[in-house]
């Protein structure tokens, strides 16, 4: 491929590609990473597509020893992702290990054996607490969502949980209606006071910007994606994050990262479609 066409490629980097590359740079060699099975459409890209592309990209670069636990399958063959994840395709997807019941995976989680997990939620608040259970604070919910799954365990026992969500006022709220999973609680020291031994959510990668968490546990704006302004980002949040001085631009994918994502990892756009 000519240098000219590589540059042309870089000019039309999609949001999903930028998010996947950004996430991949958060991953380290020998990380054991948990990826959920997700649902359809956009929710699939956020929970499954972007994380799997990020893991594979990291494996091809700085993290050859990175292990992925997808659903109940350890190290599914990421060089050959099924075109559509029907039940039959999922069942036949080759991998290293699938225990007799999923309790074994839950045990690994509680024992603190996972380094990274990926989260998305209906609501996230100023302190990175997450809600996937219900909207509304009354005796009965305004909207009943799915439940808890293992998200409480992820934020409790995984070393560096990474949240992958689209930025919106509805999702980024001052305080979650229901604490499904405990992030940085209500501020400084609140995890340690409850006996948590892990550091809590480490980063939030969105379609417009990237956050981490300040010392006091508050969400902090780290970088804006190309073309996004601080005003745009703040207008899409129901609370103001910590902003330390001038905010950097999210580093763009380099040519070889884009090449790998497009040619090697997701050539049929199975993972980054929606």
């Amino acid at each position, binding site marked *: 491929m000519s240098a000219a066409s590589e540059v042309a490629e870089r000019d039309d980097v999609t949001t999903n590609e930028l998010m996947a590359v950004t996430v991949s740079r958060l991953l380290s060699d020998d990380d054991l990473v948990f990826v959920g099975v997700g*649902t359809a459409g956009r929710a699939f890209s956020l929970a499954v597509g972007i994380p799997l592309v990020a893991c594979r990209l990291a494996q091809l670069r700085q993290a050859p020893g990175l292990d992925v636990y997808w659903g109940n399958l350890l190290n599914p063959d990421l060089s050959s992702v099924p075109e559509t994840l029907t039940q039959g395709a999922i069942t036949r997807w080759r991998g290293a290990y699938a225990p007799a019941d*999923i309790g074994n995976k839950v045990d690994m989680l509680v024992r603190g054996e996972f380094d990274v997990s990926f989260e998305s939620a209906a609501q996230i608040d100023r302190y990175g607490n997450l809600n996937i259970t219900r909207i509304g604070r009354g005796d*009965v919910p305004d909207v009943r969502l799915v*439940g808890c799954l293992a998200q409480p365990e992820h934020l409790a026992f995984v070393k560096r949980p990474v949240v992958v969500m689209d930025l919106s006022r509805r999702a980024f709220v001052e305080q979650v209606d229901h604490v499904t999973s405990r992030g940085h609680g209500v501020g400084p020291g609140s995890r340690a006071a409850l006996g948590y031994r892990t550091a809590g959510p480490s980063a939030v990668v969105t379609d417009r910007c990237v956050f981490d968490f300040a010392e006091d546990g508050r969400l902090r704006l780290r970088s804006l994606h190309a073309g996004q302004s601080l005003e745009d980002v703040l207008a899409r949040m129901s609370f103001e994050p910590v902003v330390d001085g001038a905010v950097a631009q999210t580093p763009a994918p380099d040519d070889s990262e884009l090449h790998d994502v497009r040619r090697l990892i997701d050539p049929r756009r199975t993972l980054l479609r929606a």
Partner: protein
Amino acid sequence: MVEGWTGDWTMKSKLVSVSEAASLVPPSSTLVVGGALLRRQPIALVRELVRREVRDLDLVTWASSLATDLLVGAGCARSWEGIYVGLWWYGLAPSFRRAVESGALRVTDHSESYMTARFRAAAMGLPFLPVQPIPGTRMTARDDVRRVICPYTGTELHTVAAVEADCTILHGYVGDEFGNVAWPAHRDSDDVDLIMAAGARTLVVSVERIVPHDTITQHPNLTYIPHVKVDAICEAPFGAWPGSCDTEYDEDGEELERWAAAGRDPDAFHRYVEEAVLAAPDHDAFLERLGAARTKALEVAR
């Protein structure tokens, strides 16, 4: 294995019809329902519970979908406990959602490690198990989650009570007439049916196919539910439809979209239940109405 050897079995047959199997589930009882997401939900048995108008069930599940949504939508359930109810790729579970939002259905949300411990406690014959605490969440603020000091280390742990269910219904791959239920050598194992079976009081299993006992004896390590645990076994081909049975058939996307659409309105779902469940008197009639062409198209390569 000696060629042609048939053995001399003293086990008793527990093979019954789907309808007889479902009759073991009494009204106003606590019912564990197996499967995970859209996979191996015991829908043939659930349809029979709907036909029999078994009411006031307290449901306990892992990640549930169609079974819970149908039992709730048909007015058979009064409470639910578990880790998830939804239709996975097909959205939220509409009847379940409406019942929770109206206050008609009591729900208790558990996370995976707390729920696993509840099923394991039952399987171990213990009244409770300790778990590593996940403090500061809505789940652990409830009074069914208790605190205990570890007598060895002095650290605080949480405890959860065993699932003490009256009855457990599961859908499996193959089984013999005695109730030995086997899984294939490779499957999708994202469920806890094995633990649910081990902790069951009354255990009712439907399977895709009843196979000769000789088939089971060739690979006893594939038997995940031994006959000694089973009270009734029945043959229910496509017994998880319109969900999937991994290694047998995929979920029926067209039907799931129909289900999800009908579920948005209680009257529409009522009509759907009349047409899709009650119009056939039993599972055989139901399969006949569905048609072999439709089910054949969902089968996956073995």
